[in-house]
């Protein structure tokens, strides 16, 4: 028999990470094997992507610190950075997994101790943060180890530090989150958590982006690295020395790197780990009661009531007839923008893209100004207009709204099909919804790009026209894909979007298409007017050809779906 705490931990872990239990002995299906290979490759890619940034920054720091004999600060920097990053990521994870829908409501009705509930949740968040923390600490330990050749006990110390790193930051995260959730009723619902988690995650991602962009621009400047990141007077060194767990981690690693002081270093490491466990356990015991109490009314929405006069006035104000396609478009708009998971992955992309570009511009503006100054030949050709058009197209088609149009409506399809709605109007509204957002994306991308490059107004308009034409075609291709192969079986609305192969096909297709068109433009150089005509006209023509058979197909397909 497994203890309730372990059973709960396993349940949470499997739910959050989508891991099913042991597979039966039967031969796994090819689809399952391919999916697992794909997930494995993605995990390697993401780890390598993050890892390479930290490998580069650690190597640069080591080279900058070594001449002054301060290379040990690399380890303090690593322990502090890992603790800070794990705190932010752990905070977002703890927030997003605070209440896992109906599951917790069911658990509250069972004789489960509150400390087991919170403890199991803490352990589940800890495991993911441990993996991330290990990557960050491990990179520094390995780089330091290769360059300095410390005794083997140094690596054992690295493992101890990695184990201890997430404990105190996560205890802090829960010490902030549980009182907040207990005290503020308005945020005790899934949407509020998603918005807060999204804002925290986004802010962190932007700051991280800024940090990386700035660091990349100055990585060859040892004096700058010393002053800003790893020197004894830098902010990170100050935070590290003021934050005892980082100081303990640094001391553990530094002592274990010194011959003859390994045992002392390990004792410091074990003491740090024990202190972390006490902090984590203490926070769980302290917060378990308020946590369980806050779950009991989680997700309850208060009903907005009107007076009799208010209800009459509402009907007078709102009961206006609109043509069905406009009403259908309005429905699409509201259903997407009021579901945070859809909004953040859909229309918000159009806002997020320019923000990220702004951060990159701000962090690397000197390099950028130099680059723009040397682009006269590029701007004189049609390439600048086409590059700006490509950026507009990319941003305009980044939302994947049409690729999930029918999938998102899976739960309502039986009802929709019973209404006297022409499938063409229904799907047409879905196309328009995607295209309206595409127009915004194309305008921001193409016109913003034109302003940054200093293109004349006519070329900016040409780029916008090309982008709109291409984005309309891509939106229609997405609509075709989701009409042919909608994902109609899901429990969580986000699955209609995130686990939808149509989005992946279109995103990869757009990248391939833009790359192909870039190559074509290079192979067949042409003047600006000719380029605008060819690259704007061809997608428009293809759009028409793709639209012509669509209404008949949509009618047939929607009628055939077993809703």
């Amino acid at each position: 028999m497994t203890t309730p705490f372990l059973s709960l931990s396993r349940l949470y872990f499997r739910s959050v990470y989508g891991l099913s239990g042991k597979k039966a002995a039967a031969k796994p299906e090819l689809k399952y094997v391919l999916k697992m290979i794909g997930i494995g490759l993605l995990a390697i890619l993401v780890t390598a992507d993050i890892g390479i940034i930290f490998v580069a920054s650690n190597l640069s720091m080591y080279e900058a610190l070594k001449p002054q004999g301060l290379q040990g600060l690399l380890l303090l920097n690593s322990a502090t950075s890992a603790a800070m990053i794990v705190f932010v990521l752990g905070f977002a994870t703890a927030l997003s997994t605070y209440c896992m829908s109906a599951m917790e409501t069911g658990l509250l009705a069972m004789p489960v101790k509150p400390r087991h509930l919170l403890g199991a949740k803490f352990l589940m968040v800890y495991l993911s943060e441990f993996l991330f923390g290990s990557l960050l600490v491990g990179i520094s330990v390995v780089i330091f180890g290769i360059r300095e050749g410390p005794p083997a006990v140094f690596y054992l110390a690295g493992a101890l530090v990695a184990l201890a790193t997430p404990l105190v930051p996560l205890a802090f995260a829960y010490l902030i989150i549980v009182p907040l959730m207990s005290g503020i009723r308005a945020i005790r619902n899934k949407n509020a958590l998603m918005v807060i988690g999204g804002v925290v995650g986004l802010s962190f991602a932007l700051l991280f982006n800024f940090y990386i962009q700035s660091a990349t621009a100055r990585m060859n400047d040892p004096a700058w690295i010393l002053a800003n990141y790893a020197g004894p007077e830098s902010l990170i060194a100050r935070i590290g020395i003021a934050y005892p767990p980082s100081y303990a981690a640094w001391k553990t690693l530094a002592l274990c790197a010194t011959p003859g002081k390994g045992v002392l270093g390990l004792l410091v490491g074990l003491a740090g780990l024990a202190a972390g466990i006490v902090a984590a356990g203490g926070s769980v015991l302290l917060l378990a009661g308020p946590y369980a109490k806050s779950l009991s009314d989680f997700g309850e929405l208060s009903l907005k009531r009107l007076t009799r006069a208010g209800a009459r006035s509402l009907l007078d104000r709102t009961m206006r007839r609109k043509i069905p396609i406009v009403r259908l478009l309005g429905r699409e708009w509201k259903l997407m923008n009021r579901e945070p998971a859809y909004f953040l992955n859909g229309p918000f992309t159009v806002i997020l893209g320019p923000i990220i570009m702004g951060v990159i511009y701000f962090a690397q503006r000197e390099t950028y100004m130099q680059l723009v100054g040397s682009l006269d030949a590029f701007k004189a050709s049609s390439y600048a207009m086409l590059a700006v058009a490509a950026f507009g197209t990319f941003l305009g088609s980044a939302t994947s709204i049409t690729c999930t149009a029918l999938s998102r409506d899976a739960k309502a399809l039986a009802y929709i099909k019973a209404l006297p709605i022409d499938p063409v109007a229904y799907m047409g509204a879905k196309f328009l919804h995607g295209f309206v957002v595409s127009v915004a994306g194309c305008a921001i991308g193409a016109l913003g790009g034109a302003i940054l490059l200093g293109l004349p107004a006519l070329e900016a308009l040409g780029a916008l026209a090309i982008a709109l034409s291409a984005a309309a075609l891509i939106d229609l291709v997405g609509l075709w894909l989701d009409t042919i192969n909608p994902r109609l079986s899901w429990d969580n609305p986000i699955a209609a979007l995130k686990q939808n192969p149509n989005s992946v096909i279109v995103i990869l297709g757009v990248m391939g298409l833009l790359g192909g068109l870039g190559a074509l433009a290079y192979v067949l150089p042409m003047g600006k007017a000719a380029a605008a005509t060819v690259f704007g006209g061809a997608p428009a023509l293809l759009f028409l050809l793709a639209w012509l058979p669509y209404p008949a197909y949509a009618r047939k397909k929607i009628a055939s779906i077993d809703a």
Partner: protein
Amino acid sequence: MIRLESLSKTYAKSGSKAVDSLSLEVRDGEIFGFLGPNGAGKTTTIKLLTGALRPDSGRVEIDGIDLALRPLEAKARFGLVGDNPELFNKLRAHEYLNFVADIYGVPDAERKARIAELAERFAIADALAASIGSFSRGMKQKLCVIASLLHDPGNWVLDEPMVGLDPQAAFDIKELMRGRAAAGKCVFFSTHVLEVAELLCDRIAVIAKGRISFIGTIEELRSLRGADRSLESLFLELVDEGQAGSAK
């Protein structure tokens, strides 16, 4: 008037025949109860009759209009209260009603008057500005009932309409059913609450394993099977026979 003619449907995924050569006719001015145990094919039949599912064979006619040939015209002639009121939780109640009214082309004054009257009757007028997600299940069910009547359809189709309703709302629905039948309109509803069927229905059909076991009035059923027996025992007998017949 609703006419189902030799309807059959086999689900592609499970391969099970959910509805098998089902025929029935619901006349104007009558309340028709569709009875059957769980999994008998009631919801599948309603989905076939409303166009959510396409039959493998057979025909559906609404007021003489073939649903397969003229779907929009046929669908405009009924109002549906489906089995799942969990729809459009992100919309506000008045937005949902306005949406449905536009789809049926209900003029402004008419939709306003009808919403005001029905929302008052079902005691949700004060919640019209609220998000549907904040409604209880019963309130969502009431909202679906209101939406289904906005265009004053000639045919009212309801799938398990009493589920989740408070006694007052259940009473109001029964009154509405009676009122509509008295006005010459057709009411077709599924239920497994036999008391409701006995109290309301002019005629009933009992379905088991996708096949009709009986169609007629409750009096006809009793005269066939025993006048002194309860509807419950008659129903169970019919279902048993239907399931045994299907297994042969």
